[in-house]
């Protein structure tokens, strides 16, 4: 057979799943390892049966329900990553809470209003670029993309009042009123963009940076 390591891996899943299948056939509720193995094996086999990606993914959510497993288990099995072998090769399928859910969760979240962590200062931002612009929590707003129109002087030393990792996404032509708060710490900005490289509160720093911004065509400078 000249099996490759990844095929040996497949057999490990099968062996664990087969143990789970036997235990299930004796009427036992499955534990964490057993449940994960059985879901994995059945999902991998769905691809072997020739199902398309979405159908294989869906199959992963129909193997086990909460009634099939020990009381703690449905909540523990939060995520299973698998690479079924499809006609066009191995493809990554990620199952999210496959015991609790009966179908994959939608990745298209409803529009979520930003959660502002401080009232701060209200700033209006308008994206005049032809591409979307996403602005993250700790970025120095003064240096945001030159085609975003905002009062750059008011944005000096400010960041969005968003939780870390959240983004304000402005589609081309879109406007938003954002809450901004002062950058904390020693208030030294380096590496955000080409305009600022030093202490925000140094005498003349803002005016010099505004002049550079105007020279370089930053809107609202």
């Amino acid at each position, binding site marked *: 057979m000249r099996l490759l390591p990844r095929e040996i891996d497949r057999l490990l*899943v099968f062996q664990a799943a087969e143990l789970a299948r036997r235990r299930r056939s004796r009427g036992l509720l499955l534990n964490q390892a057993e449940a994960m193995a059985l879901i994995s094996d059945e999902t991998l086999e769905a691809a072997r049966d020739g199902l398309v990606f979405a159908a294989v993914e869906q199959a992963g959510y129909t193997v086990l329900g909460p009634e099939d497993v020990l009381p703690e288990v449905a909540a523990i099995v939060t995520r299973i*990553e698998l690479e079924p072998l499809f006609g066009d090769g191995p493809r990554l399928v990620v199952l999210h809470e496959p015991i609790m859910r009966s179908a994959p969760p939608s990745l298209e979240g409803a529009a979520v209003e930003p959660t502002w962590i401080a009232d701060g200062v209200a700033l209006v931002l308008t994206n005049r670029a032809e591409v979307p612009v996403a602005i993250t929590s700790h970025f120095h707003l003064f240096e945001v993309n030159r085609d975003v129109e905002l009062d750059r002087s008011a944005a000096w030393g400010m960041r969005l009042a968003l939780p*870390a*990792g959240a983004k304000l996404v402005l589609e081309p032509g879109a406007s938003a009123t954002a809450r901004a708060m002062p950058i*904390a*710490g020693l208030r*030294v900005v380096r590496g*955000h963009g080409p305009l600022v490289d030093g202490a925000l509160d140094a005498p003349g720093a803002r005016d010099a940076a505004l002049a550079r911004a105007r020279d370089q065509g930053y809107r609202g400078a």
Partner: protein
Amino acid sequence: MPDDDLVRLADSSLLIDPGPDEQGHDEIAAGWGGTMRDGLAVRAERGGVEIAITGAIVIDPMLGIRRCAIGITDGRIVAIGKAGNPDTMDGVEVVLDTATAVFDARGWIATPGGIDTHVHLLSPQVVDAALAGGITSLVIQDFGPVWNLGSNPPEAMAATWGSFEAHPVNVALLVRGSSARPGPVERALAAGGAGLKIHEDVGAGVPQIRCALDVAERHDVQLAIHTDGLNESAGLADTLAAIDGRTIHAFHIEGAGGGHAPNVFELAGRSHVLTSSTTPTVPYGVSTVAEHRAMVAAVHVLEPGRRHGDSAILNHRVRRATMAAEPVLHDLGVIHMMSSDSQGMGRIGEITSRTFQCASAMREERGGEGGRHDNERVLRYLAKLTINPAIAHGMARHVGSLELGKLADVVFWRPDMFAVRPELVLKAGLPVWGASGSGNASTAMTEPVSVQRQVAAYGTAPGRVSLAFLAGSALAADLPITRPRARVEGCRGLTAADMVRNTRTGVVRVDAVRDVVTLDGEVVAAEPVSRVAFSGTYLLG
């Protein structure tokens, strides 16, 4: 159901309150659009730590339970608190720069690597099992399937040390202290030892105890003892007289692992006797007595029913009452440490799970300790497998907690699989063990995901991330090792008061006639548990 801010440890009855997130709104968010970019939470000038652990719930016997970051440089913990860029954030303790590697531990618990002071290295497979159970320091007393009970002779010790070039664990070797004269003991110690072991199977009488303690005092090392279960030349009182108030570490204090029958447990509760349990009797389960009758005979080469006397000594050693008392004395902090007794009756991969199984069973039987969480109980039990064994064996300057200056041996757990399956084990801040999947896959976590060796467990890395603990007389020994050497120290004069979160003393009595154990006159006994936490909900079995 617990309050939203409390975290349940796996399927146990234990709830922890992780406290406020010390990052506040300055979370270190990894990934696309996260904060871990130059100028945001990291800065382009040096001054940062080399490695940072961010986002974890830290459970540490010295630091307590905190949601904080840990900074690591040169393998040691150098900063604890909020992580980030002091240029743009307030209150930063763990400075991140553009060369800092970050372990994003959000959603994980971080504990110090465990320390097993009772390792029979009867086969090298125990090391993998230990790492998979969150144990990163081994105090070893054998090198293979030989009757040794102490790592002797020098040639074998050197080979043992050499083999650990392939294993990313800190190591200390105990040499045989069962010797009525100090010559062989001191020679073995100087050849690469870090402490002494007395075992009744090679002699645990008064001359051996006196001699070994004299050696221990001269070299500032610990003596671990398995006392004379036959009471052949000495009973408990004689052993105590030979110890003469000096510090000693009494193994498997309950007694089924061996020692004065039926009353070795009476060594517990005394100030100068540091005590540990071993995995087979903890927690006390409905099968414990039955298992021990088979186990003691198998391990100690008995032939009950065929050889005269073997049935009798087996009956003396396997006692329901002392087994039932053991979890309660752990809960009260009378017993200081947990250990495995690997392959000499114990299971090295289960030290962590069994310690917390005991904690969970005691939570259920004896109730909470006030308040809505079990932080103090969790920390008390964690101390038994981390800081207390480190203190007892003179290793606490380097391991046993996540305090500043210590080696960054850290175990990460998902809360819902705490003490069962570690997500990642760091040695000196580098990944040596943990969960990963099929090598060909497009993600690191594609099934089958196994808990297995990681990068710093291969090649020459184990020697870079591990310490050799040695007695002062062995620091310059000719050993085939590349790992840094650390002197064991501060072993003598220790008392129960030095045992973190487990300082209770008292008079323990084993009443063989009434078949009970008492502490200060009160009967102590737990009900046997029929289903333990941290086990069948998860494991294939």
